[in-house]
């Protein structure tokens, strides 16, 4: 499996994401600097890691969404390449328009860092299928702007099409309809606020994040 992690100035979960990918796939991912203009050919997955790309100034993810590498990423995602955006990666995907809605300041106005129980809404997606019968997982969140918002029409569509991937069981940030992660209509792009790469080793206190990476191993869904 050929994977890549995109690194923006201010990304800070790039190493963690790379380690999780190496652990699951047996290969180190390519680390792609934001100034590059194209991703390697034949990628099975591109990960946009968490962090504070460009300081998260203006709006979280806004500047990264307009950087050189992102243009190619959007094109490839539209062609069907799987893309996983975690935390800041989710914010960036939203800002590119690949995923609908907006991620606003947490309702409590504070940064939240906690291990969060999640409901897996769709266990058939290419990002969740290895969870099998498991419906409930615990994965940590750490963010200031994770409060998902979209208009009702969009929300109904997301729910109707099975695009809600994860829901919070104990909403930490005010997200509308408890949404923690969504996919695009084609199902090849997932954005989620919780950090699966922080739950892949028993010393993390749990390995519930592994499933997200393992699900991708089986080829295209």
């Amino acid at each position, binding site marked *: 499996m050929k994977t890549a992690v995109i690194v923006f100035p201010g990304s800070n979960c790039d190493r963690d994401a790379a380690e999780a990918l190496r652990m699951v796939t047996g290969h180190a991912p390519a680390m792609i600097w934001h100034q590059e203009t194209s991703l390697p050919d034949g990628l099975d997955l591109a990960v946009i890691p968490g962090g504070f790309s460009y300081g998260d100034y203006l*709006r979280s993810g806004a500047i990264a969404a307009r950087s050189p590498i992102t243009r190619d990423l959007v094109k490839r995602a539209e062609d069907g390449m799987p893309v996983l955006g975690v935390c800041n990666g989710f914010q960036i995907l939203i800002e590119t328009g690949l995923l*609908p809605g907006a991620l*606003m300041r*947490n*309702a409590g106005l504070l940064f939240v860092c906690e291990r969060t129980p999640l409901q897996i809404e769709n266990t058939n997606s290419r990002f969740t299928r290895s969870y099998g019968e498991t419906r409930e997982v615990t994965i940590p969140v750490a963010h200031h702007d994770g409060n998902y918002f979209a208009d009702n029409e969009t929300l109904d569509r997301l729910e109707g099409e099975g695009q809600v991937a994860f829901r919070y069981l104990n909403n930490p940030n*005010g997200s509308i309809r408890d949404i923690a992660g969504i996919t695009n209509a084609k199902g090849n792009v997932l954005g989620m606020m919780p950090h699966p790469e922080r739950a892949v080793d028993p010393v993390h206190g749990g390995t519930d994040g592994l499933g997200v990476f393992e699900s991708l191993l089986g080829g295209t869904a």
Partner: protein
Amino acid sequence: MKAKIHVYLKPGVLDPQGTAVANSLKTLGFEEVTGARQGKLIELDLSSVDAEEASERVKAMCDKLLTNPVIENYDIELSA
């Protein structure tokens, strides 16, 4: 030339920051405050000379980067 851009949250979009501001003001005894909303103020210095063109360009900046149309509205004030 200078541009002053006011960025507002759209009506209907929840504004927890504004709500917190209104509540704290009331707690401090400013009972006359019935609501608050918090937005952004972006000031740009421009080397442009033509006001009309500058206005077009700043609008493009707002649409391409400075604001998020899903949740925000904006207005632009240009001055020499």
